[in-house]
């Protein structure tokens, strides 16, 4: 009996291993027979609904299915995509010319009328008009087709960066959207991208190649698998079960050698601790209301040390919100140098020779090594007498406080995120009294930013933004930390795996 039980158990194991071995690889298949396998942190929570997320992790999936009208790459260039050209025809109107010969995976043809229908659906349909993308495209009033190839967008105010913003508007098949509504599109997404959804499972999506796509893929299939655990993602890559993974942490990079590679790039996001000095129009009782204190905190933190020791030496210390490739970046503004003595002197001038205590609400897990970075900040501030208490919280809790400006702390984690538009004004606005739920206000700076927001002259606008950036450095609304990095892992045999502002070019990927 005991023997038979042992034999049965062994048989289960051996059978499983044998089954697995039978399913194993062999040599590299021809490109068209290959299935690319990608491991991501999570799949889009709204499934195929492209209006609820414009950034990661959703964009890792949507880049396979949908296309936007324009595409803003990591260098900040606005590139033709489903629209081949555009021009500003008045203060509040823009004309976009639609690409010829583009079809959706259900056979629909891309037309100017279809694009206008999708844009108007987003603005008017009750189910999506309050979505993330609709809110980000709040300046769009309406859209209409002028002819078969031209669609005119009308904005409610002057919007000089509408072409940048339209990178957020992913275009689902207009008729499918009209017939099935956003729920229909969410359940059965139809786009112009290189792959079409075959099955949207619980934590895996399988795709087949959409060979008639205007950017037809080289590979024959794609699988995107949700793997929440970073260690499991890395192990899946190392064991060859996936070809590409996102969300690699810096301490995992050393483990990728030989058959696996880590690609580290700057992520066009600046990590910072935002200072809360006002609530609405009223100043709060905080030492941070004094500019000298805020400058002192910027001098007190060793940002180069953070970049070198925690971020592989690839991140960059910063003293402003816009990153190098983002419009408005001011090359004359350098990071505050690490100078604890100067920090102490400034604190003494501000009436805090022995420092003070403060607290900050932070979310960890959003950026590489962010938990360690916050600890490093805490230690550096302690050296100048500032006792920082870190309150770790979930993102929804953070969002609730951020949206309602209901902070109880003197500071909170907030990034200067220019993605995906590569325009800094959204992030810059957050750090001024232009934001409805104001937490920091410098009226002259806000006025200067306000003027830039509606300036249709690109060069003058950039100059205005650079000036605002300098003002925001001199009178800092945040403790500027580092220009963050993004790390993806890939198998050495995978070609064309470029992370361009989180938009993977699945059409170009192929396994050697």
């Amino acid at each position, binding site marked *: 009996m005991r023997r038979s039980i042992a034999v049965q158990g062994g048989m*289960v194991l051996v059978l499983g*291993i044998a089954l697995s071995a039978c399913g194993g690889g062999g040599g590299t298949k021809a490109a068209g027979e290959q299935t690319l396998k990608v491991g991501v942190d999570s799949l889009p929570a709204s499934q195929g609904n492209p209006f609820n997320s414009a950034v990661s992790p959703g964009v890792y999936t949507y880049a396979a299915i949908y296309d936007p009208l324009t595409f803003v790459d990591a260098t900040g260039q606005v590139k033709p995509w489903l629209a081949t050209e555009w021009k500003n025809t008045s203060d509040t109107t823009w004309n976009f010319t639609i690409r010829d010969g583009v079809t959706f995976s259900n056979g629909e043809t891309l037309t100017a009328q279809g694009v206008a229908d999708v844009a108007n659906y987003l603005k008017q349909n009750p189910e999506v008009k309050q979505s993330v993308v609709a*809110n980000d495209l709040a300046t769009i009033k309406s859209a209409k087709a002028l002819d078969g190839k031209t669609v005119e967008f009308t904005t409610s105010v002057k919007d000089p960066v509408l072409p940048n913003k339209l990178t957020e508007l992913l275009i689902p098949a207009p008729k499918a959207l009209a017939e099935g509504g956003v729920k229909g599109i969410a359940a059965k997404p139809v786009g112009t991208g290189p792959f079409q959804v075959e099955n949207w499972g*619980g934590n895996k999506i399988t795709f087949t190649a959409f060979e008639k796509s205007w950017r037809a893929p080289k590979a024959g299939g794609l699988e995107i698998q949700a793997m929440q655990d970073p260690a*499991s993602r890395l*192990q899946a890559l190392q064991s060859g079960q996936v070809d590409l993974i996102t969300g690699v942490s810096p301490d995992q990079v050393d483990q990728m050698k030989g058959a696996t590679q880590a690609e580290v790039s700057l992520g066009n996001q600046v990590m910072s601790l935002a200072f809360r000095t006002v609530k609405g129009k009223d100043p709060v009782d905080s030492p941070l209301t004094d500019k000298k204190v805020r400058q002192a905190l910027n001098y007190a933190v060793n940002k180069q040390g953070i970049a070198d020791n925690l971020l592989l030496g690839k991140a960059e210390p910063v003293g402003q919100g816009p990153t190098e490739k983002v419009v408005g970046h001011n090359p004359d503004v350098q990071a505050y140098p690490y100078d604890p003595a100067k920090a102490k002197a400034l604190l003494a001038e501000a009436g805090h020779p022995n420092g003070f205590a403060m607290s900050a609400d932070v979310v960890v897990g959003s950026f590489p090594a962010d938990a360690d970075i916050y600890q490093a900040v805490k230690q550096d501030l302690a050296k100048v007498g500032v006792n920082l208490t870190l309150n770790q919280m979930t993102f929804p809790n953070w969002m609730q406080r951020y949206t309602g400006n209901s902070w109880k702390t003197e500071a909170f984690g907030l990034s200067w995120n220019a993605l995906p538009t590569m325009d800094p004004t959204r992030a810059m606005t957050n750090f001024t009294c232009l934001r409805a739920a104001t937490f920091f206000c410098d009226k002259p700076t806000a006025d200067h930013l306000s003027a830039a927001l509606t300036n249709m002259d690109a060069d003058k606008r950039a100059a205005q933004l650079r000036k605002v950036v300098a003002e925001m450095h001199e009178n800092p609304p945040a403790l500027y930390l580092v220009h963050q990095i993004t790390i993806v892992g890939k198998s050495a045999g995978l070609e064309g795996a470029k992370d361009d502002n989180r938009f993977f070019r699945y059409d170009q990927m192929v396994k050697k």
Partner: protein
Amino acid sequence: MTDTASAPAVTGTPVAAGRPARPPGRAGRLARMLASRLSQLVLLLFAVSTLLFFLLRLTGDPATTLAGQDATPDQVEAVREQYGLDAPLAKQYATFILRAAQLDFGTSVQSGANALTEVLDRLPATLQLALLAVLLNMLVAIPFGAWIGSRSDGRAQSIASGVVFVGQGMPGYVIGLVLIQVFAVQLGLLPSIGNASASAAILPAVSLAAFLVPRLTRVVSANVAETMDEDFVRTARAAGASRHTVILRHVLPNALLGAAALVGTQLAILVSGALIIEVIFAWPGLGALMINSVQQLDFPIVQAAVFTIAGLVFLTNMATDALLGILDPRLRRQR
């Protein structure tokens, strides 16, 4: 005599009125027990749902997540209105309870799909993993525990017992990560993600079983050791039965009665708590769905999932009780 004939309260005949009531028959007892259990289940689901409803409301406001980081307060308010989150809490609760009573948990605020359907779609994967793990657990722990218990003073058994004791403190996710490293990364023999093939279930099931085996082994070995000292065992041995036969025919059946209760509890724990193993192995069960939904404050999904799990745990416990009653006539008589 039939059950119906022996039920004077039902027939209401004058003849029966003066006699003492007879104990109900088997069908009556069964009906009474089922009614009692059903009322317990309803009470449990009501209590769990109520507690969860208010706990979830303390965790945050899903409208802020849905509206996006750069939404204005007006835009957030509009989202709140769209999902009925602007109504007074008491009204939200009343609506929730009324709908839950009809198994309507609403739609996911993220995907727009029916919440209960999403949960039930994920349930088979979780059950599959839980049952496999429990089966594996029994296949290993019962013979292993019987071997240890049969000679509890033996040297090899003492060492094995120590190993089991230490193994009891080993977290399942550590075992999972080690198994992936060995069998998927180093040897390349088994997949470690998803549930696309039969072999994909091996590593997660073994990881879960590795967490269960030490506990069941200890219970079985203790029960076997205790039973080995019973008079009927000595009698059997004196009658010439071999040690092997005595253990298989006389000791194990008695020792397993206590173990059966533990197996039932373990299954209930797995149904509700294999979350970490599901995450590590990207297993598309309830665990990953629950974690995502809690992170996104997707209340309808969390409520539907917890409701389903509570019901399942209750039914598992009930089935265990019933099984114990079948296996052990003494328990039947006690009821």
